[in-house]
């Protein structure tokens, strides 16, 4: 069912991209890059069994980056008319006049262009095959399953069913033209539980590039209910230093900070606590973190962070960011690679507006051998974190302070729910103090992590 993303004949949009490139060059640009994105979205929200919203639409937009030697500027538009394109080109040319000569700016060398080979399994045309009524029914079933688990499941924020497909085209004046299509479908449910102590909300979801890989609505609903019910009666704990076990969702965010700290843009600015740490030890020897923009999951379905080429037309690739505790790679695009006198790692990201940024593909922490229960079982007294809140992560210093909720661990067992507390430490130390990694690695989004256990974090509470 997957269609090959090695497009032989150029689509209309790829043709439009090349036309815009020619116009930019005619207007005097020495180089230019065009990105076009086109997408469709469908979403529905069902709440307490009734349809609340139905949304269905499509849109497209065009972004242009022009170079005049080493000056550059970008423009974007949703107006594809001849007049709209004219304005886009004219605007970029005018803007580029005021920017500075930047010796590091410019398109990649043509020899670096390329696409990952073969079918990456990014697009499946079955995502829209389900009639709207059946999509609504799936959301309804997920919500029903959640609310029928227990009499304390009394309310709901509803259940969503979402579908999206998109086409991305990238073309530049040094000869790169590429495009790929991606599909997405998924549903989620956010039930609310209530008892004498108050209300709690949590949620669960399933998503995939093809309908075939969605979990059953009943499974998702029951899991959402389990997550919600376990929060009822949450209390605070006293301020103390303790072991903290992070659920896969929160571990993913903590390991995501490794990728952010290894971002070449932060590195060349000295704005990262990983600055100058390449080939040095930044974590315990049990830590290996991979970034893989080419990941294909079992069944031939591409990961959510998989693309054939990056935002500048370089092939995506797999590399270790941290290998057995040693920082092995920064995440680089062409600009930051030149600044650091290195080579791009194929991690350029490209939105419609602005110059290329940096983004990870699919990243993951290599799993260990213990089950999550074993990891928790070794903790006498500590915290199992299922949610963090806030903006208390400082990538310049590594300082970490977040609101948290979860369950208290007593004698190796999850004992009672806790909330309205904070956890704090410094990421530099946290990465060295990971005393256990579980075996529960599952890809539910572009990043994935198993459960991890961190020693000696500060918990502030009552």
């Amino acid at each position, binding site marked *: 069912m997957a269609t090959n993303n090695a497009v032989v004949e150029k689509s209309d949009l790829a043709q439009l991209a090349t036309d815009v490139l020619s116009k930019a060059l005619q207007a005097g640009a020495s180089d230019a890059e065009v990105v076009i994105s086109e997408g469709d979205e469908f979403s529905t929200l069902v709440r307490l069994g009734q349809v609340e919203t139905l949304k269905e*639409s499509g849109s497209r937009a065009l972004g242009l980056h022009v170079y005049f030697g080493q000056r550059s500027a970008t423009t974007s538009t949703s*107006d594809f008319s001849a007049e709209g394109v004219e304005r886009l080109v004219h605007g970029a040319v*005018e803007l580029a006049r005021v920017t500075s000569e930047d010796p590091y700016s410019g398109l990649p060398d043509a020899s670096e262009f390329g696409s990952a080979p073969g079918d990456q399994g990014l697009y499946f045309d079955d995502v829209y095959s389900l009639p709207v009524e059946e999509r609504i029914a799936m959301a309804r079933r997920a919500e029903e399953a959640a609310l029928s688990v227990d009499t304390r499941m009394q309310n709901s924020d509803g259940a969503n069913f979402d579908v999206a497909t998109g086409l991305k085209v990238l073309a530049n004046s040094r000869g790169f033209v590429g495009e790929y299509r991606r599909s997405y479908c998924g549903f989620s449910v956010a039930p609310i539980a209530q008892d004498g102590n108050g209300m709690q909300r949590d949620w669960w979801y399933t998503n995939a590039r093809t309908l075939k890989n969605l979990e059953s609505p009943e499974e998702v609903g029951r899991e959402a209910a389990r997550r919600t019910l376990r929060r009822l009666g949450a209390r605070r704990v006293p301020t103390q230093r303790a072991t903290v076990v992070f659920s896969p969702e929160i571990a993913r965010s903590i390991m995501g900070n490794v990728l952010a700290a290894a971002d070449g843009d932060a590195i060349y600015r000295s704005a990262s606590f990983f600055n100058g740490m390449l080939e040095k030890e930044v974590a315990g020897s049990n830590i290996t973190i991979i970034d893989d923009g080419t990941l294909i999951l079992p069944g031939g379905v591409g990961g959510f962070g998989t693309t054939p080429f990056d935002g500048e037309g370089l092939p995506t690739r797999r590399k270790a960011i941290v290998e057995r505790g040693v920082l092995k790679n920064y995440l680089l695009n062409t600009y930051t690679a030149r600044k650091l006198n290195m080579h791009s790692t194929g991690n350029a990201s490209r939105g419609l507006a602005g110059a290329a940024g940096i983004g990870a593909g699919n990243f993951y922490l290599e799993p260990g051998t213990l089950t999550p229960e074993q990891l928790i079982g070794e903790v006498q007294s500590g915290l199992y974190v299922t949610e963090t809140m806030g903006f208390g992560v400082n990538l*310049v210093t590594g300082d970490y302070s977040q*609101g948290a909720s979860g369950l208290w661990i007593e004698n190796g067992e999850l004992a009672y729910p806790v909330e309205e507390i904070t956890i704090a430490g410094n990421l530099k130390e946290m990465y060295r103090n990971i005393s256990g990694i579980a075996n529960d690695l599952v890809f539910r989004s572009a990043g994935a992590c198993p459960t991890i256990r961190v020693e000696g974090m*500060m918990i502030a509470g009552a």
Partner: protein
Amino acid sequence: MTAPTAHGDNFQTPDHKRYFYEKLGVTDRLIERCLGEALAAGGDYADLYFEAVTSTSIGVDESLVKTASQGVSVGCGVRVFSGERTGYAYTDDLSPERLLRAAHTAALIANGPNKQSVAGFQETKTPSLYPVTGASVDAETAAKLELVMRADRTARAFDSRIIQVRATYADELRRILVVGSDGVYASDTQPLARLNVFVIAKEGDNVARGTSGGGGRLTLENFQSGEKTPERFAREAARQAVLQLGAVAAPAGEMEVVLGPGWPGVLLHEAVGHGLEADFNRKKTSAFAGLIGQKVASSKVTVVDNGRMENRRGSLNVDDEGNATQETVLIENGILKGYLSDKLSARLMGIASTGSGRRESYRHIPMPRMTNTYMLSGEDAPEDIIRSVKRGLYAVNFGGGQVDITNGKFVFSASEAYLIEDGKVTAPVKGATLVGNGPEALKYVSMVGNDLALDEGIGTCGKDGQSVPVGVGMPTIKLDKMTVGGTGQ
């Protein structure tokens, strides 16, 4: 149907709708046909939201103008109500064919014969809270460039330990035209500008960041001189970074907390504002549901949401559903007074709309949202408030906050804070997250300063994936207890 004209008693009122008719080909007949199509399947109500946004941005980085960008986005969203159901579709192509197709798609939320007629439009009377700038963005590029260069020079001159400076000036002009089948007809032109400075300070192995910025519904001239100059924001960012070089670990645990004036008002936004948005209360999913008339704060606390302040980032002449904005009292002397409502929640809850229906763009369904949310001044002198604290935290700048509407738990993350020891402000501490419970936290407000200030105008609020510009404000206040999430004991 004919489009209503602006009220004749004020010839200065700009004709915001003209742009859509003259530049984008919108006609009265087209609006009428689209609303008719949107109601063709039996919907109770339909509206069209036309939007045209032009945005520009210019940035200096390492003393080079590395980035300059410009964007244009035009589209229309069509919404249909059928009982509690909402159908929505949008198009970025304003041709009659595409608009009618979007209307047809949205219409399918209903299932029955057409029962509504569309007639009798009345233009919403709106104030003029902000300037209407021209569209000659190109001509201003040089002047914007000068602003960011001034920021760069000032930050570098502030201290030799400042090693990196980035400054960005970004603005947009958003034009909207909203027409509802209930006769609402409104248009507006909304400028929005901001200047941001980001710096890194380094001393030996010690590195720290500092950020500052300001903005509002302003134009370029407002940044060239006066209160919002690049020099002021650059010095402020540099001062914070240098200060952080010497910061000690923040304390951990429950303690007395003094919040400075202005941006710390994000506390109100998180602790009470979101919980009072009517959609959560209609669904009874908010920790504040059913608490109207109850005491939720100390009697010294009065909190309002005010969309009608001149030039403020959160202000709007008219909301995104065509209703006039207003000042809404949320908490008065500690008693919970009201909710922030949009059209749907007002209809379904049988309450008045507070003009709080906002959306990120034509691609988004409106929701009840805040505008400028702040606490009114009290009677205490800020110095007396500090003096009253034996051991606590004095937090003056925040990075942002978040709330769980259902259990009321909120956090907000301090980016500049100090210890208070024996009534005196002492050492600067590292960033720390503060955590509390919305319906409880403000009960511990024991002192309220006489120094109400609003933030500098760079706040953005996210809800259900939609971002909108907002403002917050507060006088200096003292909370007798709050949990501070540092690493120190």
